[in-house]
């Protein structure tokens, strides 16, 4: 199948926003990781904006960037969000409260603990009522969510906002499930070329897990790529940034391969 990229968003250490991140991804500037700025998401109302947890900010800010670039109204996009572990910040608070016999569970934190909280807040903030999903597939979450978005775009004939995000857990969960750093990526995909298309991606799937997954061209991005499931998108982002035609292999869960041929336009 073929999809067109209408917008790109990215948020990670030293990769804040597509404009500046793409200069790093195409090798024009050295990679210089710094703590990610997680601004309160503009699309939420004032109260929700303040209360949005860090993982939700991570997801929504990248999503917002991609949709703005696409020029497609948010409420005309279906959504496919993915995260390997969801909101660990909220989870930790809840688990602490539950471990205390006198502990009180915050009702807001409880409804924020669902895996689909980020897409929930996105739809509430933007009024988007089309189909939305939230996928978890451990290290292959990006591949899983990307293919879902492609299927949704081509079969349902809708623009699809793809957003995959993962944020390290606070301790003590971090020690049992470490992530290399926060990262989120968002793409708006359409089944047909449009004025805002920046690239075409032809997508093939294979059960062959022996195909090597494409690694980041920039070796200083390897740690992030390997240690954050959302950052498995980095080689694809490098290709989109460079404007070259290239093939990218992404692992599809559990041991299949997505073969992408990316052609910039």
């Amino acid at each position: 199948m073929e999809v067109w990229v209408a917008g790109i968003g990215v948020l990670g250490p030293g990769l804040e926003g597509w404009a500046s991140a793409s200069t790093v991804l195409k090798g024009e500037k050295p990679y210089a990781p710094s703590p990610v700025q997680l601004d309160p998401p503009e699309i939420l109302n004032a109260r929700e904006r303040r209360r949005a947890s860090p993982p939700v900010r991570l997801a929504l800010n990248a999503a917002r960037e991609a949709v703005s670039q696409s020029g497609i109204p948010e409420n005309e996009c279906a959504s496919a969000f993915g995260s390997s572990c969801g909101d660990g910040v909220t989870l930790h608070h809840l688990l602490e409260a539950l471990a205390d016999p006198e502990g009180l569970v915050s009702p807001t934190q409880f409804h924020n603990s669902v895996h689909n909280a980020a897409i929930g807040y996105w739809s509430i903030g933007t009024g988007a009522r089309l189909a939305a999903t939230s996928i978890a597939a451990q290290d292959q979450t990006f591949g899983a969510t990307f293919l879902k978005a492609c299927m949704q775009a081509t079969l349902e004939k809708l623009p699809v906002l793809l957003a995959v995000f993962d944020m390290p857990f606070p301790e003590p969960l971090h020690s049992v499930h470490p992530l290399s750093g926060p990262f989120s990526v968002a793409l708006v995909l359409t089944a047909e070329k449009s004025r805002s298309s920046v690239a075409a991606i032809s997508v093939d799937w294979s059960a062959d897990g022996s195909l090597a997954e494409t690694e980041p061209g920039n070796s200083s991005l390897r740690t992030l790529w390997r240690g954050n499931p959302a950052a498995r998108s980095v080689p694809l982002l490098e290709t989109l940034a460079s404007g070259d035609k290239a093939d990218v292999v992404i692992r599809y869960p559990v041991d299949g391969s997505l073969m992408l041929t990316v052609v910039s336009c």
Partner: protein
Amino acid sequence: MTPLAVTSYTLVSALGSGLAATTSALIEGRSGLRPWDLEWAALNTYVGRIEGIEEAPVIEALAEFDCRNNRLAQMGLRTDRFEDAVRAVAERYGSRRIAVVLGTSTSGIRESEIAYAERSPVDGALPEWLRFDTTHNFNSITVFVRRYLGLRGPALTISTACSSSAKSFVDAAQMIETGICDAAVVGGVDSLCLLTMKGFASLELTSPEPCRPNDVARSGISIGEAAGFAIVERLDAAPDAAIALLGYGESCDAYHMSSPDPEGVGAAEAMREALDKSGLAPEDIAYVNLHGTGSVFNDKAEDAAVFSVLGDSVPCSSTKGWTGHALGAGGITEAVISCICITENFVPANLNMHEPDPALSCRIVAESHEAPVDRVLTNSFGFGGNNCSLILGRTA
């Protein structure tokens, strides 16, 4: 859409293990709800608890996956010869051509709940025994089921709260249409945990009595647990299939994280999309299995939505008075119940409704009865306003 054959299905819930137990509980009007009695906490509520999970660890070969959720999954896979049915399908198409798409909301979180109560007093570290990746991790259920069944195809987990396992049918349909698999194991599992027991209580959504969907005095939900699975494949490759997925619809409320849009606009859109995809008109639906949790707001909002799409002549009921609300596994629970309604030509009553809420407009079934049931629409609505409607129907 091209109808998708549902060639095998099973359910383990508070009604018991398997289709026969579920069917007789439905026909006999026997609820599976009971007072909360686990020692984890003192709670004044009813639950759809499944017996025997504590005594049934997962198989030794998959010991690292052992947790309540995966134990319950194993119970489900061993029921109604489901694992044999999977083996047969895998032989037909090849094990790499069978996908596993499952829904869950809390996976094996209970393990982390127990672990947090055993943190080191010195440095707060979690105990050594916790195996987060193979238990609590959202995707653990899918990896466990895939390995238990010996499958080697695509696999992922959908976690959209109470619509999760309903949506598994949608992803499987898309994967089959795209050609990345020929069949899929769909469904999901959710099990009792302290997070949902205390979480729903904190939102004042749980009732101290067995839930009473659509009742004028309803006062909240009864949490349940369940494991349900189905095999879906192309109808032209499974011409003997008695039941097919005819349509699906998905939408968001875009309203609030834990309260439904009172006008049910998103819910209505999901139902309309399901009808459009199936090429059916409202009068073609014999029965609506409502999401019907028993919460004051859900039942009212859903009623508005159903009425706006289907009017007041289609019989509707919630079956959560039987099973409780199995959260992420609610969708598959009610898909399987819908399949039972079709095969048995049975319309279940809205159990525990002592006095219908006069503010509701739909035709809510007060007494179970037999009637031709060719096509059922079933709703699942989750936190975040995530809606999924499925239409299941008799193939011939």
